């Protein structure tokens, strides 16, 4: 599990270092899953035990799976999914409007070789 998380992170970082927006979007998707697995692992893994107490009688000494990481991941999945959707639309619009998905060429907000401010009154 730890190895898997490591591989996911490596893939995500590799994709993020790309010049192309679409690869960065894919990197964001992988990164979200890497974090989810990380939280899941840090909540301690147990095998085949449901996070449910049976019956009305609450008992001690019985092993249950940790339900909290599952709740956290559920929240994180929803959030990362909505982000992914937003980023997809945003990068598509950027491609439409700016005509490029290369980050080096996206200089519309900060043009290169801008004039210096006036040096005298």
């Amino acid at each position, binding site marked *: 599990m730890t190895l898997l998380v490591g591989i996911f992170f490596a893939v995500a970082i590799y994709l993020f270092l790309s010049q192309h927006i679409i690869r960065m979007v894919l990197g964001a998707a992988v990164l979200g899953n890497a974090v989810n697995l990380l*939280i899941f692992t840090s909540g301690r893994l147990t095998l085949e035990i449901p996070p449910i107490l049976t019956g009305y009688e609450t008992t001690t000494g019985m092993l249950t799976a940790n339900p909290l990481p599952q709740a956290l991941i559920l929240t994180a999945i929803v959030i990362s999914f909505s982000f992914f959707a937003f980023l997809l639309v945003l990068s598509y619009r950027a491609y439409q409007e700016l005509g490029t998905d290369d980050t080096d060429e996206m200089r519309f907000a900060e043009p290169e070789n801008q004039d210096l401010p006036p040096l005298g009154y």
Partner: protein
Amino acid sequence: MTTIDLSAAMITQAPPLADWLVVAPLVLCMVLGAVLLMVRKDTQIQPVIAIPGLVALVLVDAALLAHVWMNGTVTMTMGRWLPPFGIAFTVDILGALLTLTGGIAALAGGIFGAGDVNDSGRRYGFYPFLFLMMVGVSGAFLTGDIFNLYVWFEVLLISSFGLLILGSERGQIDGATKYAFLNLVATTLFLIATGYLYGIFGTLNMADIALKAQTMDDKAPMVTLVSMYLLAFGMKAAAFPANFWLPASYHTPRVVVSALFGGLLTKVGVYALIRVLLMLFPAERDLLGWVIALIAAATMVLGAMGALAQTDVRRMLGYLVISGIGVMLAGIALASPAGVAATVFYAVHSMIVMTALYLASGMAARASGSFSIAEPGGIYQSHVVLAGITLALFFAVSGLPPFSGFWPKALMVKASLDVGAWWLAAAILLTGFLTTIAVGRVWLLAYWRPAPAPPEEASTGAKAAAVTPVHALSPLLDFLPLVMLTALVVLIGIFPQKLLELSQIASEQLLNPAEYIRSVFPTEGLQ
């Protein structure tokens, strides 16, 4: 098999009525955001609902601050489970003070937006996004649970995306792409750190973490954890060297959106840094103190130098936001009571003054037709009041008395000298000097310099050509928020005692979190 008495872990009585104030700002913003979303097609009704709603928000925030000031830290727990199982909202002076300031900035933005945002901007949801962003900002300031803090970060982030691309111009989409990716990385880093934190402590309640961190001997994972939080929140706060998303995007949206971002968003990052580094992990922060001090000095000086190199007023303001973040980080690096008090004071000052400056720059651009300082100005001739207000704000942002920027900077310099960090004090003073030059130049070129004569008269050197304003400025919608914020800046500058007192209480509460912990766990002994 033994049966557990669950009532020991549950809340049995409803919380007292006054404690509902803790969640009132959130509930108010959520309800109004939802209502405004429903009427988003009706662009005339929106400001009529939104502006009274924001006034109510400011009143509720003020009531919350008064309540916390009178009765100490307040905790409200959701869903009947007692902390550390239930999610708790814990409000101390710092949280309440910043929420109130944020509310005031949002009110100014909301009023200004009524005149600035056109019908299509409203139909795309300026006001709903504004309220949802306030949900995120207020929630981040008020929550007492670190995963909950992450959720509020995301709420404010996704609303800020919506605000940022309002209008869908080329520059906006370009800026928003960079903003979105870098902030996504920052919040994911925050989530990674939170995952590790849960793995180490097995709890997410801040008071519980603060308690357990005191007895934690294993330093190695803790320092890793704190470094990750420092990087994540440093990115959110736009601290050097993770600040490049801010000048890439803050000048692209509508000026009222820039004003809200400049006033609110980076300060949430600073707040999270204060909360996590100073309150939760003070021992690990001491190990990283010199790193934070270097970051602080680099952020403030490079921010001011960046401001010097800009021709566009909005981009210059973006760099001034960064420079202010550096000053706030200096207090976190010092971690002395005086330093932290100065940070809190500066955060309040910066929220007000940056919002006001962006609004003023928008009005100046409407008066003169351009955001560039290279192009002819003459605003002083045509709009004396606006020029005067802007001059006051410029003095405030560079830290000259008698405005609000002077006191926290003076306190910070003294706090640095007290611990022998002369170079940090020098950096603060150098920053103030560079900022004065940068803003002084803007005022001289864009405001004081007379508008040039039309071309045919240029040869004769005629000076006094009347400027025809591109858009008239409305005294109510445009000047009211600006005058309100400037009045606050002047009031804080002349009567700083109350705010100083509040900042000092906030600083004591942070450095000695006993009251915070006792508020969450009433039965926990004094430690």
